[in-house]
């Protein structure tokens, strides 16, 4: 339990470093949903940075994740439904966990505070209700 918290703090520190450096050096907000959805339409001027970021994301995960870790993913239908909801929701809200709960809160954005409170509360309620039904 204590080690879980230490890992979470260390991982959070790395995520904060990533978000902070991307802003300090490149002058950009590190929002995963924004960086990803920008690649789904006409590619933006800074497309190379978006692509390199995601390349790094995959490499960083592969390097640090415990080899052979088994992910408890839900059924294909659940994954598809959840994916559509997440994709639609983050675009409507203009940000996800990284953009709102890390970058937005770090700069004291009221919009991000409301968004973060909302998606965490709804996600907690969903988990509770999913066990009942």
């Amino acid at each position, binding site marked *: 339990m204590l080690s879980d918290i230490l890992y979470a703090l260390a991982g959070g520190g790395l995520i904060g470093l990533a978000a902070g450096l991307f802003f300090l050096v490149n002058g950009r907000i590190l929002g995963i949903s924004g960086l990803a959805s920008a690649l789904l339409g006409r590619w933006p001027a800074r497309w190379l940075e978006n692509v390199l970021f995601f390349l790094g994301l995959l490499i*960083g995960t592969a390097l640090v994740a415990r080899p052979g870790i088994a992910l408890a993913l839900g059924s294909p239908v659940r994954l598809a439904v959840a994916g559509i909801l997440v*994709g639609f929701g983050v675009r409507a809200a203009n940000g996800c966990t990284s953009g709102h709960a890390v970058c937005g809160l770090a700069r004291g954005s009221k919009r991000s505070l409301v968004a973060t409170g909302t998606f965490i509360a709804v996600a907690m309620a969903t988990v509770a209700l999913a066990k009942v039904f």
Partner: protein
Amino acid sequence: MLIRAAVALLAGLLFGAGLALSGMINPAKVLGFLDIAGHWDPSLAGVMAAAIPVTALLYRLAGKRGSAVAGGPLPGPAKGIVDFRLVGGAAVFGLGWGLAGLCPGPAIADMVLDPRVMIFVVAMAVGMVVAKRLSGSGV
């Protein structure tokens, strides 16, 4: 130009390493964090607790400089107000997050660990495109 590319790659590496180290890449762990009425595992709160102050520190450093290190302006504070679109969008996102235990970063990162997550990622891309079309903007 080179420094921008290098920092983008570095930010990705750090972000992926952070997701993997913290346990955010594991949907079961995330669902445990969200399960306040059951076997609540609050440890993932540590991710935000560490990430926010580190980000805020570097943001402040950037604010003192007044411009990005690689040149160019810094993005200003988020425009817009708290409206239905923001709250409704966040609620729909929360519903999906609670169903699968996956938010966009970990979902994309998990593609190197389990190809089944592609179902989620492709569906997420569809949801993003639908939202874009409906809003009629290039957001």
